[in-house]
């Protein structure tokens, strides 16, 4: 046998000759590592699905809404003059660089009637740029065109949920429906996006010029046509911050705001939201990992406990080995390798169990999970590190036993 192999085989024999004890020692590590893998994969999965959601809306999207930007609380500076207008949109399109398309829109809640079915839905009047800006696709039919927009043709593109509610499984393309005081013809159904806030699945899109025929679009004191929001896409995501700054100063001057006034609009770029969310979910993942890490630590203390007991129980063996010429480092190495071996094996089994758990979670449709190589490598090396760290003291104790006393022990 090769020399380097002997300590390994000794450790192996130590492990297999005490199967139950080895199993129980490993169990703590298995549970710890499995918990780390499973929880981290759930955290990573949540991050990935949120980011994918944002991705589907387009990370180059910038949305401008009237009123100051707040999360939850009261919107500041709400008043007669706080409004975004078609003219704002045109000015942005003409004066701000790095912009591919600008799409102002005006939304209104209208009653929809098809045969016996009726429902209320948010109807948004849009320009033809809207598809591109919002990254929308039709599942069926088509969008309306620039020509339709110019003529104010009464056409509608339905969100997938709206289509489901009004038409069920029947074909909706070419069907007519009543919308407020006008009759529109369905030309397209949007691809379902899922998504979170104000998902397009729940709305209806019609040409803004058509919407004006049933809903009076208000005008500001200056006679500009009010819109509900302006969305736009930037040509270079790197420049998103610059674009936001430029729009801010342009709108501030158009709205005649003094240097001390707050903005009467808010601008959110998807870039910003996505980095905010991925930071939040990253923190959550880290938190989950830390909680699981504690169980790994407890498992490590379990290893130390068992190794200390094992040293006591095998005092005589240590004495015999020393009498046969084992040096302190032979004994030390034997126990340390045994501890590392147990935690390594525990780590590997833990990875398999953790993987199985996250696979199970995914296949049950509870949550998306992502197991990445870095988590696996981290968990296994941490568990081996724990074995070495917590095995160190018992191994040192074992190596320092006096051979005469060790041989005398029962």
């Amino acid at each position: 046998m090769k020399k380097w192999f002997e300590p390994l085989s000794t450790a192996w024999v130590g492990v297999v000759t005490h199967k139950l004890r080895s199993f129980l020692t490993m169990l703590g590590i298995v549970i710890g590592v499995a918990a780390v893998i499973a929880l981290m994969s759930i955290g990573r999965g949540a991050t990935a699905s949120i980011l994918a959601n944002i991705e589907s809306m387009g990370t180059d999207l910038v949305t401008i809404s009237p009123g100051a930007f707040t999360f939850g609380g009261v919107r500041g500076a709400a008043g007669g003059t706080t409004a975004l207008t078609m003219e704002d949109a045109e000015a942005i399109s003409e004066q701000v660089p790095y912009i591919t398309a600008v799409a102002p829109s005006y939304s209104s809640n209208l009653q929809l009637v098809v045969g016996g079915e009726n429902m209320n839905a948010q109807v948004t009047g849009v320009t033809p740029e809207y598809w591109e800006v919002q990254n929308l696709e039709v599942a069926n039919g088509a969008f309306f065109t620039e020509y339709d927009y110019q003529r104010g043709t009464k056409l509608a593109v339905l969100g997938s949920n709206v289509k489901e509610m009004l038409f069920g499984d029947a074909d909706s393309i070419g069907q007519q429906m009543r919308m407020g005081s006008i009759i529109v013809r369905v030309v397209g159904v949007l691809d379902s996006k899922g998504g979170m806030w104000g998902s397009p699945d729940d709305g209806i899109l019609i040409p803004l010029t058509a919407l004006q025929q049933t809903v009076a679009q208000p005008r500001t004191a200056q006679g500009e046509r009010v819109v509900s929001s302006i969305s736009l896409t930037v040509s270079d995501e790197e420049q998103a911050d610059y674009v936001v700054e430029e729009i801010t100063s342009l709108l501030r001057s158009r709205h005649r705001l003094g240097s001390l006034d707050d903005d009467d609009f808010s601008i959110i770029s998807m870039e910003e939201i996505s980095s905010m969310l991925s930071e939040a979910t990253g923190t959550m993942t880290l938190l989950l990992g830390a909680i699981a890490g504690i169980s790994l630590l407890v498992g490590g203390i379990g290893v130390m406990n068992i190794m200390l007991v094992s040293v006591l129980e095998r005092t005589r063996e240590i004495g015999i080995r020393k009498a046969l010429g084992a040096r302190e480092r032979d004994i030390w190495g034997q126990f340390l390798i045994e501890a590392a071996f147990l935690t390594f094996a525990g780590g590997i089994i833990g990875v398999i169990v953790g993987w199985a758990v996250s696979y199970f979670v995914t296949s049950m449709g509870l949550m998306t999970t992502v197991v990445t190589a870095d988590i696996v490598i981290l968990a296994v090396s941490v568990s081996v590190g724990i074995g070495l760290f917590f095995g160190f003291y018992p191994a040192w104790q074992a190596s320092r036993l006096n051979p005469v006393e060790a041989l005398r022990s029962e």
Partner: protein
Amino acid sequence: MIQLQDITKVYPMGKIELTVLRGITLHIAQGDLVAIMGPSGSGKSTMLNLIGCLDTPTSGSYYLEDREVSRLSSGELAGIRAHKIGFIFQTFNLLPRLSALANVELGMRYAGGVDRQRVMEALTRVGLSDRANHRPTELSGGEQQRVAIARALVKNPPLILADEPTGNLDSRSGEEIISILTTLHAEQGITLLLVTHDANIAHQCQRIIHIKDGQIVAEETV
């Protein structure tokens, strides 16, 4: 081979000090077969542990093969035990979970590496080649002690120390063990020290050393 000069050994027992050896001076030549006799607590096991480099004396000097070993570090002592000394214990001291073969292998483990062929030779020498895969619990006391002898001699040490090797055996097995040991001594010229209570065994040796209260009180040549 072995030169003990005025060796003392004192164990601290809390506040009291227990003097076990009080000035032992002894010379053992290479190839000697020596019996050490004495009542319980006379210090003969302590002396054997010192000679076996399992322990170090409180004072005095100990030359093993002309090398002063009484002040060596624990690592150096381990090296001497690994290469020079084979131990045989009253209670056999085999590892219960290992086979006879693996136990004998352990004898070579710290002496430069295991050689399976020599392990089998050693087992054959003690007449246990057919029981190599049995665990100690599946062997009789005499057989277990023979495994222990094989473990001690597998690395070809110049010195074998046996601490009451027949103490836990019936008289027939005991005789077998003694005959294996004396044959080894005769054939290979191994220096053999034997602690025993049994006068019959002692008289099969060349020299008998009597110890009492930590001192050599008599010595006879057979």
